[in-house]
């Protein structure tokens, strides 16, 4: 519909100019650029964690346990005398590995099922919609707990479990987007031009509704990192030998008074990484969705 007031008209003009190059908006957003750079740095650190970490994260030293920062251990040591800094860095690797794998898997599954369901409509859509509802009816940590009990701990199991938990939200979002998009006149006009369904789907509908799903994926990386930490804090999920932020906080709890860094540092690490993905996700939404035109940082 052609819109009403002039303010929207003018905005439409400026949007249409900017829509073709959202790069311009990206250039305007300093905070987003910083977040992107930091994410790249974090990915690099995560990838090369064992080489970057100054010490072996699993070497225990019962003489020097629960130490404060020293020259050897810049952030101190934990209750077994392991170097905290090295463990935090290696914990990054664990979290990123699981979170990224989870998001890729659940993105693929969710988008495929959601777009199929939304495009088909009819009883197939109804059944799939119900299934999605059931998955979303479980608070995610509860579902994760139940599944972890079923699967047992381990990195691979964690990935499987988190994918089962998260695919549904991707499927629901994609389905809603496709449902809204497929009644747009340009889709009808593609149908009227006798273009087949797969053509319309891959060339028109998906490219037009994928951006919110990508935003969700970015934000969900942060979400996955939180869930991983929560589960391993509860003692399920990651075997104790692997350095992981959640279990580090858990094991630091009894010594909180004498060695507070053991609970503070891993928590800060979780928060910062999640924060980065959240900022990036919302930033991508702002620059790609012309409706939210909220300039400014964060």
């Amino acid at each position, binding site marked *: *519909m*052609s819109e009403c007031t002039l303010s929207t008209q003018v905005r*439409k003009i400026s*949007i*249409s*100019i900017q*829509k*073709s190059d959202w790069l311009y908006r990206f250039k305007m957003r300093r905070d987003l650029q910083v977040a992107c750079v930091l994410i790249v740095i974090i990915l690099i650190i995560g990838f090369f964690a064992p080489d970057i970490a100054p010490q072996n994260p699993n070497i225990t030293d019962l003489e020097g346990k629960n130490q404060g920062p020293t020259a050897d251990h810049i952030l101190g040591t934990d209750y077994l005398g392991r170097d905290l800094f090295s463990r935090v860095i290696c914990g990054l690797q664990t979290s990123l590995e699981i979170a990224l794998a989870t998001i890729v898997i659940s993105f693929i599954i969710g988008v495929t099922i959601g777009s199929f369901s939304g495009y088909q409509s009819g009883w197939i859509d109804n059944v799939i919609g119900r299934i999605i509802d059931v998955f979303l009816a479980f608070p995610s940590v509860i579902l994760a707990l139940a599944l972890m009990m079923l699967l047992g701990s381990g990195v691979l199991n964690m990935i499987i479990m988190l994918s089962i938990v998260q695919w549904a939200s991707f499927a629901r979002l994609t389905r809603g987007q496709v449902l809204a998009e497929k009644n*747009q*006149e*340009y889709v*009808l*006009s*593609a*149908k*009227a*031009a*006798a*273009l*087949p369904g797969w*053509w319309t789907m891959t*060339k*028109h509908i998906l*490219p*037009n509704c994928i951006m919110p799903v990508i935003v969700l994926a970015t934000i969900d990386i942060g979400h996955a990192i939180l869930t991983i930490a929560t589960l391993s804090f509860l003692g399920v999920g990651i075997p104790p030998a692997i350095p992981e932020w959640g279990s580090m906080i858990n094991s630091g709890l009894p010594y909180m008074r004498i060695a507070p860094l053991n609970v503070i540092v891993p928590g800060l690490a979780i928060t910062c990484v999640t924060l980065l993905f959240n900022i990036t996700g919302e930033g991508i939404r702002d620059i790609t969705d012309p409706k939210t035109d909220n300039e400014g940082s964060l």
Partner: protein
Amino acid sequence: MSSVLQVTNLSKTFGHGDIFRDVSFTLNAGETIGLFGPSGCGKSTLGRCILGLEKLTKGSVLFEGKDIFRLDRKERSCLQAKMQMVFQHPEVSFDPRRRLIYSVTEPLVYHEKGESEYVLHSLLPLIHAVGLHPGILDKYPGQLSGGELQRAMMVRIYSLSPHLLIADEPTSMLDMSVQSQILNLMKEMQKKNSTACIFISHDPEVMQVMCDRIGVMSEGKCEIMNKNNFSEWMQPLLVMDTMEKDH
């Protein structure tokens, strides 16, 4: 001349009520039939049903003697390419993320498996005929006016040289002067290609200019009239004639 389109006893039910029932007419090449009615009377749905974009409840649509709902996929696709539709909102009739050049050449690229460069080249005469500057095709739909987009739509549609065109209120969102440009263009193109046309509108004056026969839709029924009957029928509806300025 044989009829291009034969519609028999078309009915559509949705939810509790009929949207329309027992609509029948035939349409010859080069002829224009109008569908007139207030908004929400089901005239757009009827157009979409004829095109096969929506399912029918009852009745049959024969396009060039063939029932499109009874054909296999390949034949149906060939046949459907010969019947095209223009929509009410030109600004959302094109994929907003693609340059116009892509949308305009797309049907030919798919159906004739041509290179888009080559297709564009073959479309140049058509682009000039609708009064568009080819350079404009390099832009995105959001950057163009409704009139320009509706012209581009004519290129996209006539690239498939259709035998039937369904125009669903093609100018109701446009300004008066642009409306006259587009409608004249449509008439001209229709004459050149002797396309049959179903013209859907709520404006009786436009109706009279564009159509040979007019179907008036009300309460689910569609009554086909010729031009004279229609002008008699709509006499009380005309604004300027019934109300003098001084009341």
